[in-house]
């Protein structure tokens, strides 16, 4: 860089300590006002009246803020919780929420606007320059620091006394072990629960929420029922959780028997009524977006689509496996029952699942 006006900005990789970008150094040396680049006097700098006006404006913002804080406190006690008001664009809303929120919001906002107005109009706006130092300290300082460390390390003898060093490293390596071991009781060991559901032979199929047994003649073609095993509430009570509900949920639909292209087992339907797991085989969302004309079932989470007329095969989206089918029949009283449990695990894949 002999000629200071030659701004060949090609960086020289061989020179590690090359001075920072030359062009920018040069840029500063181009004719510029000595200080206060690009600085204009504001009206508030030249006109005392303008300054006074700005002062009053700032004070007005702060004053408005105090006012809104008071409005908040008063309306907190004055407005009953259940009062509703109609507001345009919002509709009927909670009077308390909207009054508390807007008063509090404006109280805060005006502090901010006031402070910035103050800074912009009345505080000095001359830009200042401050020098930077390179982050890397001087070589001597680095050496001194390293020396200090080396002296300390030597005095400790950690380098020479291998026995101490190794035993200490061993102790430190083992010390977190109790914490790791204690994590073991975060959950029980899996015992194949993911493969099981409550469904079994002769268990009645009941409607979800209302828990009524179902007769096949009550299901017209195109009908959809979200259903559960009859003992679902007892299981929930007993287990104290909703795990079984997340596994045993099924869908019952009826189609014309001639529309059924295939099933997962011979005659697993009952007069065109088929039962499939409601839990998606992708990542387990409940699916019930059933289109009665196409017999397609769509998952609202990731749009896997299954064809219930064709063994519940996936036909679109990320799900790779068919929905498990539940074989059904009727009991002697004519109510729908499961013929057996699910023949494969329901829901999303897991490593030990197998084929």
């Amino acid at each position, binding site marked *: 860089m002999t000629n200071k006006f030659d701004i060949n900005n090609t960086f020289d990789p061989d020179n590690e300590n090359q001075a920072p970008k030359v062009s920018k150094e040069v840029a500063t040396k181009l004719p510029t006002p000595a200080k206060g680049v690009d600085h204009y006097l504001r009206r508030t700098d030249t006109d005392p009246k303008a300054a006074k006006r700005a002062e009053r404006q700032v004070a007005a913002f702060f004053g408005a803020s105090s006012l809104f804080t008071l409005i908040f406190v008063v309306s907190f006690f004055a407005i009953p919780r259940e009062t509703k008001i109609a507001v345009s664009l919002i509709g009927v809303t909670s009077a308390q929420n*909207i009054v508390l929120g807007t008063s509090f919001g404006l109280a805060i906002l005006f502090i901010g606007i006031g402070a910035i107005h103050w800074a912009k109009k009345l505080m000095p706006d001359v830009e200042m320059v401050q020098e930077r130092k390179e982050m890397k300290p001087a070589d001597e300082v680095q050496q001194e620091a390293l020396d200090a460390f080396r002296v300390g390390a030597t005095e400790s003898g950690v380098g020479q006394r291998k026995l101490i060093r190794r035993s200490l490293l061993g102790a430190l390596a083992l010390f977190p072990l109790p914490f790791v071991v204690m994590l073991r009781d975060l959950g029980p060991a899996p015992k194949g629960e993911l493969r099981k559901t409550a469904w079994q032979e002769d268990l009645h199929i009941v409607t979800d929420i209302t828990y009524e047994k179902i007769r096949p003649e009550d299901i017209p073609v195109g009908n959809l029922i979200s259903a559960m095993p009859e003992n679902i509430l007892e299981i929930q009570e007993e287990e104290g959780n909703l795990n079984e509900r997340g596994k045993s949920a099924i869908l019952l639909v009826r189609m014309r028997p001639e529309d059924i292209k295939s099933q997962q087992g011979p005659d697993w339907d009952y007069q065109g009524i088929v039962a499939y797991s409601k839990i998606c085989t992708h990542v387990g969302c409940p699916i019930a977006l059933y289109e009665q004309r196409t017999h397609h079932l769509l998952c609202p989470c990731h749009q896997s689509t299954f064809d219930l007329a064709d063994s519940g095969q996936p036909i679109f989206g990320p799900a790779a496996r068919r929905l498990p089918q539940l074989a059904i029949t009727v009991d002697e009283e004519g109510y729908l029952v499961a013929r057996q449990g699910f023949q494969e695990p329901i829901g999303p894949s897991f490593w030990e699942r197998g084929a």
Partner: protein
Amino acid sequence: MSNTTVNKKTPAAYNYVDSRVGFSAALKRNMRKVFPDHWSFMLGEIALYSFLILLLTGTFLTLWYKPSMTEVIYNGSYIPLKGIPMSEAYASTLEISFDVRGGMLLRQIHHWAALFFIAAMVVHLLRVFFTGAYRKPREFNWLLGIALLTLGLLAGFSGYSLPDDLLSGVGLKIASGIIQALPVVGTWALYFLFGGEFPGTEVISRLYSIHILLLPGAILALVTAHLLLVWTQKHTQYPGPGRTEKNVVGYPLLPVYTAKAGGFFFIVFGVTTLLGALVTINPIWLYGPYTPDQVTAGSQPDWYIGFLEGSLRVMPAIEFNIFNTWTFSPNVLIPALILPGLMFALMGAYPFLESWITGDKREHNLLDRPRNAPTRTALGTMSLSFYILLWIGGGNDIIATTFNLSINAITWFMRVALIAVPPLVFIATRRICLGLQRNDLDKLLHGKETGRILRLPEGGFVEVHEPVSEAELPKLLARETYPVWELPQKVDANGIKTPKYRRQLMKAKLSAWWTKGDLPIPTMKEIQSGQHHAHEALEQAHEFGVEPGKEEIVTSTNH
């Protein structure tokens, strides 16, 4: 300022504390510390302030929220849910919303602030990336930022799940499905997180302790480190008059920066609060309590998980059975774990990769204009387009119903677009950058176009150019090029194999790609003659009676 009389007496209270703490030296150093002023430097501040708002409102929410999955029958004041069994967590969130005065407001501020927190981190990250602010000495701060973004996403998701409403429950079910799909350890991991099968009775209280203790603690620690580094390294600045690599130009901490940054905190808080007052967010009372057999159309996560939702949706159905014994699910693992893992790893590695390719190990305190680093800018927009496409893919059902499109068509479009669009964006961006560079070069070498057409005595027409203003000149000059590494020889003249040949070859090829299309840097002489020429042309224009430009600009060049 100069004529203000300063009281030299040491206040007794100050002396009392200083005698015990001894902070005068630090205060002296820092009170007038200079911070450059630019709107794009405040994006990170939005994230910081949102975090403070989250801590404040979150603390209030813990006073009423009950992290329990015990079933209760709701008997609060929201009529449409009266008498319904639900978890205590959901019931207490309803209580906060409908029975605690101002509780709805707090909940909504908290949720809006969470969305702001992550959105501001993302735009801050984009600013840092496109201006090259992550270069030496700021690589660690880049890594800290990425760690903060990751923690922010986890904090967001864990908090989103706490109300135990139908929508977040479905989100948690999806998370459980992803965990379950992990090779070898999936089932165990599921059982460890949920204390057994999904949903169990443990997960809400576990997420609660993660959400209110672990994650905010970690974020607070990393934010502190992030700010300390900014403080000691001093903020970067854009090229401009008087600004160099070795100085920082701006306003002192006291008073201007304090007033502006402090004021901005209140503005962010105020805007968040007004949103909380006027716009519903996460209406859990409409979603209903979670039960694992219910679902709603339009099941979506909050925006920051949207890209994962999109990647899960567009992923084709690929699953393998290994020896009919094990199930391996790329259709879940690739979009939900491998893709985000790769995205964050690439982001983290980027500053180091770039400096390896360019060989640039210098400190940089002046920011790059995006156009002056065309390859970087193009990589940035390319990645951004990929992210945005995933994001759109995550909302394909809402888009389908809003614009009367088919979700199947959108999904197929996304599958193609995710592969086809980013490279096109890369090419287009680099061209645009180079075009802008050419424009800058033109200004340097021929002056600025004025739009005034001059008819010459001979009958021809020329456009009058005026010299570039002093304020603009440093910006135009702040461009540099990097050398292309020579292709290494496999064996040198003495027949000795070149060490690390493959790595050198790759580096050479990458640097050729990096600098492809770079324009030459003009010499000062060329610039001076160009500006001089523009000056002369302008004077000529004056002679012909063409309306003059701004007086101060005309007189300030080439003495």
